């Protein structure tokens, strides 16, 4: 059955007088590839923060795999299977790449069977899949932008998510690097991971998404298949500036 994995129901988030999210409702099916677009400040990242638990929503509810996670601490949601990347990469800067990966391995994947050697080997194999094998013992400070993004992705994947939320993982990458990243992400999708991707790069969104949601001023303004969304006159007006 490909039922709903994530159910966001009428979630509202205010910062003082500013309404960042206004009764946003959204359903993500298990195994789906969902793209989220919208101008800066439209509430995309706030929505992710509410889903992941970095922010508590003021009203509404968030259900994951039939469990109400609205009030759950962020780390508990991760353990249930929601992982994310950050818009600006946030590596653990005092650690090597392998150690960065070891954190979610120890705290999520192998929580009940802690064993130093296994974790290290597994961290290396995850890095290898991202093409970072030869940097495993390097400090994060030595990484290029694209490698930092890959590390961010690898660290999220190490938590064995069922829902992976990517917040502009391709921002600032060259077109070759975008293709490389897209290949990795589509590969994850084929392994059965449900993926929500926020992105400004339309080429990536069009190739990645089965369905696209367009947000504006804290609301879901339009949703549908990607080719349908780019034809939508409202989307063209507010987002593409046509």
């Amino acid at each position, binding site marked *: 059955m490909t039922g709903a994995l994530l159910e966001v129901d009428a979630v509202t988030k205010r910062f003082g007088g500013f309404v960042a999210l206004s009764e946003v409702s959204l359903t993500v099916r298990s195994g789906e590839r969902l793209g989220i677009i919208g101008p800066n400040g439209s509430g995309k990242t706030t929505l992710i923060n509410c889903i*992941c*638990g*970095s922010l508590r929503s003021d009203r509404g509810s968030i259900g994951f795999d039939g469990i109400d996670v609205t009030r759950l*601490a*962020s*780390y508990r949601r*991760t*353990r249930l299977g929601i*992982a*994310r990347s*950050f818009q600006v990469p*946030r*590596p*653990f*800067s*005092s*650690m*090597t790449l*392998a*150690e960065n990966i*070891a*954190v*979610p391995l*120890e*705290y*999520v994947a192998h*929580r009940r069977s*802690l*064993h*130093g*050697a296994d*974790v*290290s080997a597994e*961290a290396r194999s995850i890095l290898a899949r991202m093409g970072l094998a030869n940097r495993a*013992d390097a400090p994060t400070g030595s990484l290029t932008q694209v490698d930092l993004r890959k590390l961010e992705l690898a*660290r*999220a994947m*190490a*938590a064995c998510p069922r829902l992976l939320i990517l917040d502009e993982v391709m921002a600032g990458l060259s077109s070759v690097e975008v293709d490389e990243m897209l290949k990795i992400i589509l590969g994850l999708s084929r392994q059965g991971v449900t993926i929500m991707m926020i992105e400004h790069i339309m080429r990536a969104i069009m190739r990645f998404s089965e369905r696209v949601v367009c947000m504006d001023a804290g609301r879901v303004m339009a949703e549908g298949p990607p080719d349908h969304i780019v034809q939508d006159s409202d989307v063209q007006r507010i987002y593409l500036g046509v």
Partner: protein
Amino acid sequence: MVERPAHLAVKRWTSFIVGAIAILVVALLLARVVGNEYFFFAGYVVLQFIVLATAWNILGGYAGYVNFGSGAFFAAGAYTAVALIKAFAAPLPVQLVAAAMVTGLMGFAIGAMTLRLRGIFFSIATVAIAVICETIVLNWGFVGGARGATVLQPPAPAFFTSYTRLLFVIMTLLAVLAVALARYIETSWIGRGLRAIRDDEEAAESVGVPTLKLKLFAATVSGALMGIAGAPFPLYMNFIEPTSAFSLNYAVSALAMPIIGGTASWAGPVIGAILLGSVQQIVTVTMSSELNVLVLGLLLVAFVVAAPEGILGLARRLSGKAGAR
């Protein structure tokens, strides 16, 4: 640090434990062999600072939450001991355990109130707790209040020629236990979680690290060890009064020693405590006890400016450069 296969980790623990036992045996031998009583008087202080600095580093170094009120935890441990001596003539082991429980609870309580928030709130609360504790003790007649209280050393057990020698060996044991505990935390998944918290708390939470639980754990262990460092203090001094127990020297030393030694590893606080503790003893004897804190302050400033990662970081950088050549 790179992960090592399990058998290597076991080997490293084995050599650590052998080293720890060797240190205890040496301490016992010294207590029999060395004639000069001052050696034990000064050695005790250095060992006490190893415990205090190691305790501070578990929260301040690993997790990055700075405690400015180590003096309050130290004094709370000392006064717990005094209260137990006055009330029940409790033996030293009971004093140690009780002190650890009281200050562990103190650490947990301050943590529970402030560690939900990130950043500086915990540090501010530790400054406040120092003032509160000192005020309570000043007005608590049972433990001597502002006048202080005299505590008589019981007769030393047959093996030791003086009670100070016994305390020296006990403080060696406490230092070894504190360092072993810190080393265990540092090299386990707990330590990796604490480092993740120090690097980026939100990112840590996002990969499944229960940040609040780990911070509370670290605050409790850190507090308990600080209290246990202070518990034998009344018997060591034979006398206790608030001004010396709550001395600024403890709060400054507890954070200066790990910072100067290097906060990344258990060895940092040990190196810092041995170095600064010895320098302080030398300055006290050859110049004046007032210059103590001044020397400490100057060294702290020098290290923060010139070697922010402490002696350990400096050594690593130098050996790294040598290796690169």
